[in-house]
Protein backbone atom coordinates (compact mmCIF):
# COMPACT_ATOMS: atom_id res chain seq x y z
CA UNK A 1 0.00 0.00 0.00
CA UNK A 2 1.30 3.41 -0.92
CA UNK A 3 1.11 5.32 2.28
CA UNK A 4 1.96 8.88 3.08
CA UNK A 5 2.50 9.25 6.81
CA UNK A 6 2.56 13.05 6.64
CA UNK A 7 -0.56 15.11 6.98
CA UNK A 8 -1.91 15.73 3.55
CA UNK A 9 -4.02 18.54 2.29
CA UNK A 10 -6.29 17.43 -0.47
CA UNK A 11 -8.38 19.91 -2.33
CA UNK A 12 -11.07 18.43 -4.44
CA UNK A 13 -12.84 20.79 -6.75
CA UNK A 14 -16.16 19.25 -7.59
CA UNK A 15 -17.75 20.98 -10.55
CA UNK A 16 -21.01 19.32 -11.07
CA UNK A 17 -24.51 19.94 -12.14
CA UNK A 18 -27.66 18.97 -10.50
CA UNK A 19 -29.49 15.77 -9.81
CA UNK A 20 -31.41 16.07 -6.60
CA UNK A 21 -29.95 18.24 -3.89
CA UNK A 22 -30.62 20.07 -0.74
CA UNK A 23 -29.85 23.59 -1.81
CA UNK A 24 -32.28 26.42 -1.42
CA UNK A 25 -35.68 26.01 -2.97
CA UNK A 26 -37.02 28.68 -5.24
CA UNK A 27 -38.73 31.48 -3.34
CA UNK A 28 -42.43 31.02 -3.34
CA UNK A 29 -42.12 27.35 -4.12
CA UNK A 30 -41.39 25.97 -0.69
CA UNK A 31 -42.05 22.27 -1.16
CA UNK A 32 -45.19 21.15 0.60
CA UNK A 33 -46.85 17.98 -0.44
CA UNK A 34 -50.19 19.38 0.65
CA UNK A 35 -49.84 21.95 -2.06
CA UNK A 36 -49.87 19.20 -4.63
CA UNK A 37 -53.55 18.54 -4.13
CA UNK A 38 -55.87 19.61 -6.93
CA UNK A 39 -57.40 22.35 -4.78
CA UNK A 40 -54.10 24.13 -4.95
CA UNK A 41 -53.92 24.25 -8.68
CA UNK A 42 -54.35 27.98 -8.78
CA UNK A 43 -51.09 29.84 -8.55
CA UNK A 44 -51.20 33.50 -7.68
CA UNK A 45 -47.64 34.14 -8.77
CA UNK A 46 -47.82 34.91 -12.45
CA UNK A 47 -44.10 34.62 -12.97
CA UNK A 48 -42.95 31.73 -15.07
CA UNK A 49 -41.65 28.64 -13.29
CA UNK A 50 -37.85 28.64 -13.23
CA UNK A 51 -35.60 26.11 -14.82
CA UNK A 52 -35.85 22.98 -12.71
CA UNK A 53 -32.30 21.97 -13.41
CA UNK A 54 -30.92 25.17 -11.95
CA UNK A 55 -33.24 25.24 -8.97
CA UNK A 56 -31.58 22.42 -7.10
CA UNK A 57 -27.93 21.65 -6.61
CA UNK A 58 -26.43 18.54 -5.15
CA UNK A 59 -24.93 19.15 -1.77
CA UNK A 60 -24.12 15.64 -0.75
CA UNK A 61 -20.55 15.03 0.31
CA UNK A 62 -18.24 14.50 -2.64
CA UNK A 63 -16.66 11.07 -2.86
CA UNK A 64 -13.50 10.41 -4.82
CA UNK A 65 -13.62 9.08 -8.35
CA UNK A 66 -12.29 5.52 -8.76
CA UNK A 67 -9.36 6.77 -10.84
CA UNK A 68 -8.54 9.25 -8.11
CA UNK A 69 -8.61 6.61 -5.41
CA UNK A 70 -5.88 4.68 -7.21
CA UNK A 71 -3.79 7.83 -7.59
CA UNK A 72 -4.36 9.00 -4.05
CA UNK A 73 -1.99 8.04 -1.26
CA UNK A 74 -4.61 7.72 1.43
CA UNK A 75 -4.53 4.31 3.13
CA UNK A 76 -8.33 4.20 3.15
CA UNK A 77 -9.50 2.16 0.18
CA UNK A 78 -13.27 2.25 0.56
CA UNK A 79 -15.10 3.76 -2.39
CA UNK A 80 -17.95 5.80 -1.06
CA UNK A 81 -21.20 5.42 -3.03
CA UNK A 82 -22.51 8.54 -4.62
CA UNK A 83 -25.43 9.85 -6.58
CA UNK A 84 -24.89 10.47 -10.25
CA UNK A 85 -23.26 13.77 -11.12
CA UNK A 86 -22.59 14.99 -14.58
CA UNK A 87 -19.08 16.25 -13.96
CA UNK A 88 -16.55 16.36 -11.13
CA UNK A 89 -12.91 17.30 -10.91
CA UNK A 90 -10.45 16.19 -8.24
CA UNK A 91 -7.19 17.97 -7.52
CA UNK A 92 -4.87 16.72 -4.85
CA UNK A 93 -1.63 17.23 -2.99
CA UNK A 94 -1.30 20.95 -2.57
CA UNK A 95 1.34 20.08 0.02
CA UNK A 96 4.77 18.81 -0.95
CA UNK A 97 5.10 15.67 1.11
CA UNK A 98 8.88 15.99 1.31
CA UNK A 99 9.18 19.64 2.31
CA UNK A 100 5.77 20.34 3.76
CA UNK A 101 5.49 23.41 1.54
CA UNK A 102 2.75 24.39 -0.85
CA UNK A 103 3.03 22.96 -4.34
CA UNK A 104 1.14 22.60 -7.55
CA UNK A 105 -1.20 19.62 -7.28
CA UNK A 106 0.44 16.54 -8.65
CA UNK A 107 -2.70 14.51 -9.09
CA UNK A 108 -5.69 15.45 -11.16
CA UNK A 109 -8.77 13.41 -11.95
CA UNK A 110 -12.15 14.05 -13.48
CA UNK A 111 -15.31 12.02 -13.47
CA UNK A 112 -18.25 12.55 -15.73
CA UNK A 113 -21.52 10.84 -16.43
CA UNK A 114 -22.44 10.22 -20.06
CA UNK A 115 -25.88 9.59 -18.62
CA UNK A 116 -28.61 10.17 -21.11
CA UNK A 117 -26.05 10.61 -23.86
CA UNK A 118 -26.24 6.83 -24.02
CA UNK A 119 -29.30 6.27 -26.14
CA UNK A 120 -29.94 9.98 -26.49
CA UNK A 121 -33.00 11.18 -28.30
CA UNK A 122 -34.49 7.75 -28.85
CA UNK A 123 -34.13 6.49 -25.29
CA UNK A 124 -37.58 5.78 -23.91
CA UNK A 125 -38.46 5.77 -20.24
CA UNK A 126 -39.13 2.03 -20.34
CA UNK A 127 -35.73 1.34 -21.86
CA UNK A 128 -34.10 3.48 -19.19
CA UNK A 129 -35.93 1.69 -16.41
CA UNK A 130 -34.91 -1.70 -17.80
CA UNK A 131 -31.19 -0.96 -17.30
CA UNK A 132 -30.84 2.18 -15.18
CA UNK A 133 -27.31 1.22 -14.09
CA UNK A 134 -26.18 1.77 -17.66
CA UNK A 135 -27.26 5.40 -17.58
CA UNK A 136 -25.85 5.97 -14.09
CA UNK A 137 -22.38 5.05 -15.28
CA UNK A 138 -19.57 7.50 -14.55
CA UNK A 139 -16.22 7.46 -16.28
CA UNK A 140 -13.13 8.85 -14.61
CA UNK A 141 -9.57 9.55 -15.63
CA UNK A 142 -6.70 11.05 -13.76
CA UNK A 143 -3.01 11.68 -13.83
CA UNK A 144 -0.28 12.22 -11.31
CA UNK A 145 3.25 13.42 -11.90
CA UNK A 146 5.97 13.49 -9.34
CA UNK A 147 8.37 16.45 -9.06
CA UNK A 148 11.23 16.73 -11.54
CA UNK A 149 11.52 17.11 -15.26
CA UNK A 150 12.05 13.41 -15.84
CA UNK A 151 9.98 12.15 -12.97
CA UNK A 152 7.68 9.19 -13.48
CA UNK A 153 4.05 9.80 -14.25
CA UNK A 154 0.93 7.86 -13.39
CA UNK A 155 -2.30 7.63 -15.32
CA UNK A 156 -5.53 6.11 -14.06
CA UNK A 157 -8.86 5.39 -15.65
CA UNK A 158 -12.00 4.14 -13.96
CA UNK A 159 -15.63 3.36 -14.42
CA UNK A 160 -18.35 3.28 -11.81
CA UNK A 161 -22.06 2.62 -11.75
CA UNK A 162 -24.83 2.62 -9.18
CA UNK A 163 -27.25 -0.26 -8.94
CA UNK A 164 -29.25 1.54 -6.26
CA UNK A 165 -29.80 5.28 -6.53
CA UNK A 166 -32.80 6.66 -4.67
CA UNK A 167 -32.31 10.12 -6.17
CA UNK A 168 -32.99 8.89 -9.70
CA UNK A 169 -36.28 10.52 -10.68
CA UNK A 170 -36.73 8.21 -13.64
CA UNK A 171 -37.07 5.16 -11.41
CA UNK A 172 -39.27 6.89 -8.83
CA UNK A 173 -42.59 5.22 -9.59
CA UNK A 174 -44.56 7.41 -7.21
CA UNK A 175 -43.26 10.56 -8.83
CA UNK A 176 -43.80 9.25 -12.34
CA UNK A 177 -47.41 8.43 -11.52
CA UNK A 178 -47.97 11.92 -10.12
CA UNK A 179 -46.29 13.55 -13.10
CA UNK A 180 -48.25 11.53 -15.62
CA UNK A 181 -51.51 12.38 -13.87
CA UNK A 182 -50.62 16.04 -14.33
CA UNK A 183 -49.67 15.68 -18.00
CA UNK A 184 -52.93 13.80 -18.54
CA UNK A 185 -54.77 16.90 -17.31
CA UNK A 186 -52.62 19.19 -19.43
CA UNK A 187 -53.28 17.04 -22.47
CA UNK A 188 -57.05 17.43 -22.09
CA UNK A 189 -56.64 21.21 -22.23
CA UNK A 190 -54.12 21.29 -25.06
CA UNK A 191 -55.84 18.70 -27.22
CA UNK A 192 -59.13 20.55 -27.02
CA UNK A 193 -57.47 23.59 -28.56
CA UNK A 194 -55.59 21.95 -31.41
CA UNK A 195 -57.13 20.93 -34.71
CA UNK A 196 -55.59 19.13 -37.67
CA UNK A 197 -52.07 20.21 -38.52
CA UNK A 198 -51.50 22.68 -41.29
CA UNK A 199 -47.77 23.35 -41.05
CA UNK A 200 -44.60 21.41 -41.68
CA UNK A 201 -45.45 18.37 -39.58
CA UNK A 202 -43.92 19.09 -36.17
CA UNK A 203 -44.23 22.11 -33.93
CA UNK A 204 -44.22 23.25 -30.36
CA UNK A 205 -47.80 24.20 -29.56
CA UNK A 206 -47.86 27.95 -29.21
CA UNK A 207 -49.81 29.28 -26.21
CA UNK A 208 -51.51 31.68 -28.60
CA UNK A 209 -53.47 28.67 -29.80
CA UNK A 210 -55.03 28.45 -26.35
CA UNK A 211 -57.70 30.65 -24.84
CA UNK A 212 -56.87 32.80 -21.84
CA UNK A 213 -58.55 30.37 -19.47
CA UNK A 214 -56.74 27.43 -21.07
CA UNK A 215 -53.41 29.21 -20.73
CA UNK A 216 -54.17 29.90 -17.08
CA UNK A 217 -54.95 26.24 -16.51
CA UNK A 218 -51.73 25.15 -18.20
CA UNK A 219 -49.75 27.65 -16.14
CA UNK A 220 -51.35 26.32 -12.98
CA UNK A 221 -50.62 22.74 -13.93
CA UNK A 222 -47.04 23.68 -14.76
CA UNK A 223 -46.75 25.09 -11.27
CA UNK A 224 -48.11 21.91 -9.74
CA UNK A 225 -45.79 19.85 -11.91
CA UNK A 226 -42.81 21.84 -10.75
CA UNK A 227 -43.80 21.56 -7.11
CA UNK A 228 -44.18 17.82 -7.51
CA UNK A 229 -40.74 17.39 -9.02
CA UNK A 230 -39.08 19.71 -6.53
CA UNK A 231 -40.71 17.86 -3.64
CA UNK A 232 -39.37 14.56 -4.96
CA UNK A 233 -35.92 16.04 -5.38
CA UNK A 234 -35.91 17.48 -1.91
CA UNK A 235 -37.12 14.24 -0.39
CA UNK A 236 -34.27 12.42 -2.11
CA UNK A 237 -31.78 15.05 -1.04
CA UNK A 238 -32.82 14.77 2.58
CA UNK A 239 -32.06 11.06 2.46
CA UNK A 240 -28.30 11.48 2.60
CA UNK A 241 -28.06 7.99 4.04
CA UNK A 242 -30.34 6.26 1.57
CA UNK A 243 -29.36 2.73 0.53
CA UNK A 244 -26.80 2.64 -2.26
CA UNK A 245 -24.81 0.03 -4.10
CA UNK A 246 -21.86 1.05 -6.27
CA UNK A 247 -19.59 -1.08 -8.42
CA UNK A 248 -16.37 0.36 -9.83
CA UNK A 249 -13.28 -0.74 -11.70
CA UNK A 250 -10.12 1.27 -12.27
CA UNK A 251 -6.66 0.75 -13.69
CA UNK A 252 -3.44 2.57 -12.88
CA UNK A 253 -0.64 2.91 -15.41
CA UNK A 254 2.81 4.31 -14.80
CA UNK A 255 5.53 5.55 -17.10
CA UNK A 256 9.10 6.67 -16.73
CA UNK A 257 8.31 10.25 -17.72
CA UNK A 258 5.57 12.58 -18.89
CA UNK A 259 5.95 11.30 -22.45
CA UNK A 260 4.44 7.99 -21.35
CA UNK A 261 7.56 6.12 -22.32
CA UNK A 262 7.64 2.62 -20.97
CA UNK A 263 4.01 2.82 -19.96
CA UNK A 264 3.06 -0.18 -17.90
CA UNK A 265 0.10 -1.36 -15.91
CA UNK A 266 0.67 -0.84 -12.22
CA UNK A 267 -2.64 -1.69 -10.62
CA UNK A 268 -6.05 -2.97 -11.65
CA UNK A 269 -8.72 -2.92 -8.95
CA UNK A 270 -12.42 -3.29 -8.48
CA UNK A 271 -14.69 -2.02 -5.71
CA UNK A 272 -18.09 -3.02 -4.46
CA UNK A 273 -19.64 -0.89 -1.75
CA UNK A 274 -23.04 -1.09 -0.13
CA UNK A 275 -24.49 1.67 2.00
CA UNK A 276 -27.31 1.12 4.46
CA UNK A 277 -29.09 3.89 6.33
CA UNK A 278 -30.22 4.01 9.94
CA UNK A 279 -33.10 6.37 10.58
CA UNK A 280 -32.10 9.89 9.67
CA UNK A 281 -28.89 9.81 11.66
CA UNK A 282 -26.62 7.06 10.41
CA UNK A 283 -25.13 5.28 7.47
CA UNK A 284 -22.99 2.16 7.37
CA UNK A 285 -20.71 1.47 4.43
CA UNK A 286 -19.50 -2.05 3.77
CA UNK A 287 -17.02 -2.35 0.98
CA UNK A 288 -14.41 -4.49 -0.58
CA UNK A 289 -11.62 -3.91 -3.02
CA UNK A 290 -9.75 -6.57 -4.93
CA UNK A 291 -7.22 -6.41 -7.67
CA UNK A 292 -3.73 -6.98 -8.91
CA UNK A 293 -0.83 -4.62 -8.29
CA UNK A 294 2.66 -4.72 -9.75
CA UNK A 295 4.87 -6.32 -7.19
CA UNK A 296 7.17 -3.34 -6.66
CA UNK A 297 4.52 -0.69 -7.03
CA UNK A 298 4.24 2.01 -9.67
CA UNK A 299 7.36 3.52 -11.11
CA UNK A 300 8.63 6.24 -8.85
CA UNK A 301 6.69 5.06 -5.83
CA UNK A 302 8.59 6.34 -2.86
CA UNK A 303 8.23 3.01 -1.13
CA UNK A 304 9.86 1.00 -3.88
CA UNK A 305 12.67 1.25 -6.34
CA UNK A 306 11.93 2.35 -9.89
CA UNK A 307 12.80 -0.93 -11.49
CA UNK A 308 9.97 -2.58 -13.31
CA UNK A 309 8.68 -5.89 -12.07
CA UNK A 310 6.96 -8.38 -14.27
CA UNK A 311 5.03 -9.95 -11.44
CA UNK A 312 1.79 -8.90 -9.84
CA UNK A 313 0.46 -9.37 -6.37
CA UNK A 314 -3.15 -10.03 -5.58
CA UNK A 315 -4.52 -7.33 -3.35
CA UNK A 316 -7.58 -7.36 -1.15
CA UNK A 317 -9.19 -4.89 1.17
CA UNK A 318 -12.28 -5.16 3.34
CA UNK A 319 -13.58 -1.94 4.82
CA UNK A 320 -16.41 -0.65 6.93
CA UNK A 321 -17.24 2.93 7.79
CA UNK A 322 -20.00 4.29 9.99
CA UNK A 323 -21.30 7.84 9.56
CA UNK A 324 -23.37 9.46 12.29
CA UNK A 325 -25.00 12.87 11.98
CA UNK A 326 -26.89 14.81 9.38
CA UNK A 327 -26.16 15.51 5.75
CA UNK A 328 -24.29 18.68 6.69
CA UNK A 329 -22.43 17.46 9.78
CA UNK A 330 -21.16 13.94 10.31
CA UNK A 331 -18.65 12.00 12.30
CA UNK A 332 -17.27 8.73 11.06
CA UNK A 333 -15.35 5.74 12.28
CA UNK A 334 -13.61 3.31 9.98
CA UNK A 335 -12.10 -0.13 10.25
CA UNK A 336 -10.18 -1.69 7.38
CA UNK A 337 -8.10 -4.79 6.78
CA UNK A 338 -5.85 -4.95 3.75
CA UNK A 339 -3.48 -7.42 2.17
CA UNK A 340 -1.26 -5.56 -0.27
CA UNK A 341 2.14 -6.73 -1.47
CA UNK A 342 1.97 -9.61 1.00
CA UNK A 343 1.67 -7.19 3.87
CA UNK A 344 -1.35 -7.32 6.13
CA UNK A 345 -2.46 -4.06 7.65
CA UNK A 346 -5.26 -2.95 9.90
CA UNK A 347 -6.52 0.62 9.70
CA UNK A 348 -8.48 2.26 12.49
CA UNK A 349 -9.58 5.69 11.40
CA UNK A 350 -12.03 8.37 12.50
CA UNK A 351 -13.01 11.93 11.79
CA UNK A 352 -15.76 14.15 10.53
CA UNK A 353 -17.03 16.20 7.66
CA UNK A 354 -19.07 19.37 7.50
CA UNK A 355 -20.65 21.57 4.88
CA UNK A 356 -19.60 25.11 5.75
CA UNK A 357 -21.88 26.58 3.14
CA UNK A 358 -23.52 25.35 0.00
CA UNK A 359 -20.84 23.69 -2.09
CA UNK A 360 -18.03 24.03 0.45
CA UNK A 361 -17.13 20.90 2.37
CA UNK A 362 -14.33 20.09 4.76
CA UNK A 363 -13.42 16.70 6.07
CA UNK A 364 -10.76 15.64 8.50
CA UNK A 365 -9.63 12.48 10.10
CA UNK A 366 -6.84 10.60 11.75
CA UNK A 367 -5.99 7.20 13.03
CA UNK A 368 -3.45 4.47 13.17
CA UNK A 369 -2.39 1.77 10.79
CA UNK A 370 -1.02 -1.45 12.18
CA UNK A 371 1.37 -3.56 10.12
CA UNK A 372 0.24 -6.96 11.24
CA UNK A 373 3.34 -8.69 9.87
CA UNK A 374 6.03 -6.34 11.18
CA UNK A 375 4.14 -5.35 14.29
CA UNK A 376 4.67 -1.63 13.65
CA UNK A 377 2.29 1.31 13.91
CA UNK A 378 1.91 4.32 11.66
CA UNK A 379 -0.05 7.45 12.46
CA UNK A 380 -2.14 8.75 9.59
CA UNK A 381 -4.13 11.93 9.13
CA UNK A 382 -5.99 13.71 6.39
CA UNK A 383 -7.63 17.06 5.84
CA UNK A 384 -9.71 17.77 2.78
CA UNK A 385 -11.46 20.79 1.38
CA UNK A 386 -14.05 20.17 -1.29
CA UNK A 387 -15.54 22.83 -3.49
CA UNK A 388 -18.76 22.40 -5.40
CA UNK A 389 -20.41 24.47 -8.07
CA UNK A 390 -22.93 26.25 -5.80
CA UNK A 391 -19.96 27.67 -3.90
CA UNK A 392 -18.22 28.73 -7.07
CA UNK A 393 -21.27 30.44 -8.54
Amino acid at each position, binding site marked *: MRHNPLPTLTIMAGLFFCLGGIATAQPGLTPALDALLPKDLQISDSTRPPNL*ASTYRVDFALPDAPAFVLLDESPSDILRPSTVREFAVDLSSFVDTSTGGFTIPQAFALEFSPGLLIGGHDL*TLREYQATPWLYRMRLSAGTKRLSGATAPSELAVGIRTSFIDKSDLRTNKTL*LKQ*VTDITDQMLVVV*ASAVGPGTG*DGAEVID*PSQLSASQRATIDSLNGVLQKT*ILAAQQKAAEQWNAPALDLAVAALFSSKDSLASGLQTADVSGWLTYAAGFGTWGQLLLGGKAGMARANGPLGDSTTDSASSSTFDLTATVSSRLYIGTNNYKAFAELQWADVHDTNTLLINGGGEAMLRSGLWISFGGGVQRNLDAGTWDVISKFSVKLGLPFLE
Partner: protein
Amino acid sequence: MKIISFNKDGGPICVTVSAGEAQTGSYEFRLWEADKNDVVMKKSGNFNNSDEDTYELPTPNDLNIGRQVQAIVVLALLPPSNDYSATMSVMQDDEELGKVTMEGSSDQPSVSLNLYAELEDDDDGKDSDEKSAEAEDRTVVQNDDDDDEDGTSANSTANGGSSA
Protein backbone atom coordinates in the same frame (compact mmCIF):
# COMPACT_ATOMS: atom_id res chain seq x y z
CA MET B 1 -47.39 19.15 -44.83
CA LYS B 2 -45.39 16.04 -44.24
CA ILE B 3 -46.39 13.25 -46.59
CA ILE B 4 -45.96 9.59 -45.73
CA SER B 5 -46.71 7.07 -48.46
CA PHE B 6 -48.03 3.57 -47.92
CA ASN B 7 -48.93 0.56 -50.00
CA LYS B 8 -52.68 0.18 -50.08
CA ASP B 9 -52.24 -3.47 -50.96
CA GLY B 10 -49.90 -4.11 -48.04
CA GLY B 11 -50.61 -5.00 -44.46
CA PRO B 12 -52.35 -2.80 -41.92
CA ILE B 13 -50.81 0.58 -41.25
CA CYS B 14 -49.63 1.10 -37.69
CA VAL B 15 -48.69 4.31 -35.93
CA THR B 16 -46.42 4.42 -32.87
CA VAL B 17 -46.04 7.41 -30.57
CA SER B 18 -42.91 7.55 -28.42
CA ALA B 19 -40.90 9.93 -26.27
CA GLY B 20 -37.11 9.99 -26.09
CA GLU B 21 -34.65 11.40 -23.57
CA ALA B 22 -36.28 9.01 -21.07
CA GLN B 23 -38.98 11.59 -20.44
CA THR B 24 -42.54 10.82 -19.49
CA GLY B 25 -45.79 12.43 -20.52
CA SER B 26 -49.15 11.92 -22.16
CA TYR B 27 -50.41 11.97 -25.71
CA GLU B 28 -53.50 11.84 -27.83
CA PHE B 29 -53.37 10.14 -31.20
CA ARG B 30 -55.88 11.19 -33.85
CA LEU B 31 -56.72 10.09 -37.36
CA TRP B 32 -58.39 12.89 -39.31
CA GLU B 33 -60.65 12.28 -42.26
CA ALA B 34 -59.28 13.58 -45.57
CA ASP B 35 -60.16 17.21 -46.16
CA LYS B 36 -62.58 17.25 -43.24
CA ASN B 37 -62.49 18.24 -39.62
CA ASP B 38 -63.77 14.84 -38.64
CA VAL B 39 -61.80 12.61 -36.33
CA VAL B 40 -62.02 9.00 -37.49
CA MET B 41 -59.99 7.54 -34.64
CA LYS B 42 -58.79 8.93 -31.31
CA LYS B 43 -56.63 7.20 -28.69
CA SER B 44 -55.02 8.48 -25.53
CA GLY B 45 -52.03 7.10 -23.68
CA ASN B 46 -48.92 7.90 -21.71
CA PHE B 47 -45.29 6.87 -21.63
CA ASN B 48 -45.30 5.73 -18.02
CA ASN B 49 -47.53 2.69 -18.14
CA SER B 50 -46.76 -0.59 -19.85
CA ASP B 51 -49.48 -0.30 -22.48
CA GLU B 52 -48.46 -0.40 -26.10
CA ASP B 53 -48.36 2.97 -27.81
CA THR B 54 -48.95 1.54 -31.26
CA TYR B 55 -52.29 1.85 -33.06
CA GLU B 56 -53.53 0.05 -36.14
CA LEU B 57 -55.38 2.20 -38.64
CA PRO B 58 -58.68 1.10 -40.17
CA THR B 59 -58.66 -1.27 -43.09
CA PRO B 60 -58.90 -1.58 -46.03
CA ASN B 61 -55.91 0.66 -46.41
CA ASP B 62 -57.32 2.79 -49.18
CA LEU B 63 -59.68 4.27 -46.61
CA ASN B 64 -56.65 6.09 -45.22
CA ILE B 65 -55.63 7.83 -48.43
CA GLY B 66 -55.48 11.54 -47.74
CA ARG B 67 -56.10 11.13 -44.03
CA GLN B 68 -53.89 12.87 -41.49
CA VAL B 69 -52.29 11.14 -38.52
CA GLN B 70 -51.63 13.42 -35.58
CA ALA B 71 -50.12 13.09 -32.10
CA ILE B 72 -50.61 15.80 -29.49
CA VAL B 73 -47.88 15.16 -26.93
CA VAL B 74 -47.38 16.77 -23.52
CA LEU B 75 -44.03 15.92 -21.97
CA ALA B 76 -42.86 16.59 -18.43
CA LEU B 77 -39.17 17.40 -18.36
CA LEU B 78 -37.51 15.51 -15.55
CA PRO B 79 -34.16 16.84 -14.33
CA PRO B 80 -31.31 16.76 -14.88
CA SER B 81 -32.14 16.87 -18.59
CA ASN B 82 -34.06 19.73 -20.16
CA ASP B 83 -34.10 17.94 -23.47
CA TYR B 84 -37.12 16.36 -25.04
CA SER B 85 -37.89 14.28 -28.08
CA ALA B 86 -41.18 12.90 -29.36
CA THR B 87 -41.73 10.79 -32.43
CA MET B 88 -44.72 9.55 -34.38
CA SER B 89 -43.70 6.78 -36.75
CA VAL B 90 -45.82 5.08 -39.38
CA MET B 91 -45.20 1.41 -40.03
CA GLN B 92 -46.45 -1.16 -42.50
CA ASP B 93 -45.37 -4.77 -42.75
CA ASP B 94 -42.66 -4.19 -40.12
CA GLU B 95 -41.14 -1.44 -42.19
CA GLU B 96 -41.04 2.19 -41.17
CA LEU B 97 -42.71 4.23 -43.86
CA GLY B 98 -41.85 7.54 -42.30
CA LYS B 99 -41.76 9.43 -39.05
CA VAL B 100 -42.17 12.88 -37.62
CA THR B 101 -39.86 13.84 -34.78
CA MET B 102 -39.69 16.94 -32.64
CA GLU B 103 -36.59 17.51 -30.54
CA GLY B 104 -35.45 20.40 -28.45
CA SER B 105 -34.93 21.71 -24.97
CA SER B 106 -36.99 23.90 -22.71
CA ASP B 107 -36.58 25.69 -19.41
CA GLN B 108 -40.21 24.96 -18.58
CA PRO B 109 -41.52 22.00 -16.57
CA SER B 110 -43.43 20.75 -19.59
CA VAL B 111 -43.67 21.10 -23.32
CA SER B 112 -46.60 20.50 -25.67
CA LEU B 113 -45.96 19.23 -29.18
CA ASN B 114 -48.02 18.72 -32.30
CA LEU B 115 -46.83 15.99 -34.70
CA TYR B 116 -48.74 15.23 -37.88
CA ALA B 117 -48.41 13.83 -41.37
CA GLU B 118 -50.67 13.12 -44.30
CA LEU B 119 -51.00 9.59 -45.62
CA GLU B 120 -50.90 8.93 -49.35
CA ASP B 121 -50.94 5.88 -51.54
CA ASP B 122 -47.48 5.29 -52.94
CA ASP B 123 -49.02 4.49 -56.32
CA ASP B 124 -50.09 8.07 -56.84
CA GLY B 125 -48.20 8.90 -59.99
CA LYS B 126 -45.41 10.82 -58.31
CA ASP B 127 -42.02 10.38 -59.90
CA SER B 128 -39.04 9.07 -57.98
CA ASP B 129 -37.46 12.51 -57.67
CA GLU B 130 -40.47 13.80 -55.81
CA LYS B 131 -40.42 10.81 -53.48
CA SER B 132 -36.74 11.21 -52.83
CA ALA B 133 -37.27 14.86 -52.04
CA GLU B 134 -39.97 13.90 -49.57
CA ALA B 135 -37.78 11.24 -48.02
CA GLU B 136 -35.00 13.71 -47.41
CA ASP B 137 -37.28 16.50 -46.37
CA ARG B 138 -36.28 17.98 -43.07
CA THR B 139 -37.88 20.80 -41.24
CA VAL B 140 -36.03 22.77 -38.68
CA VAL B 141 -37.97 24.75 -36.18
CA GLN B 142 -35.94 26.95 -33.98
CA ASN B 143 -37.16 29.36 -31.35
CA ASP B 144 -35.14 31.43 -28.96
CA ASP B 145 -35.71 31.23 -25.25
CA ASP B 146 -37.29 34.60 -24.99
CA ASP B 147 -39.64 34.99 -27.86
CA ASP B 148 -42.25 32.41 -27.02
CA GLU B 149 -45.20 33.51 -25.02
CA ASP B 150 -44.87 30.58 -22.66
CA GLY B 151 -41.11 30.76 -22.51
CA THR B 152 -40.81 27.48 -24.34
CA SER B 153 -37.57 27.17 -26.19
CA ALA B 154 -36.91 24.71 -28.91
CA ASN B 155 -34.00 23.75 -31.03
CA SER B 156 -35.95 21.27 -32.89
CA THR B 157 -35.77 19.11 -35.92
CA ALA B 158 -38.65 17.35 -37.49
CA ASN B 159 -37.53 14.42 -39.52
CA GLY B 160 -39.90 12.76 -41.84
CA GLY B 161 -40.13 11.25 -45.19
CA SER B 162 -41.72 8.67 -47.28
CA SER B 163 -40.76 5.39 -48.70
CA ALA B 164 -42.61 2.67 -50.38
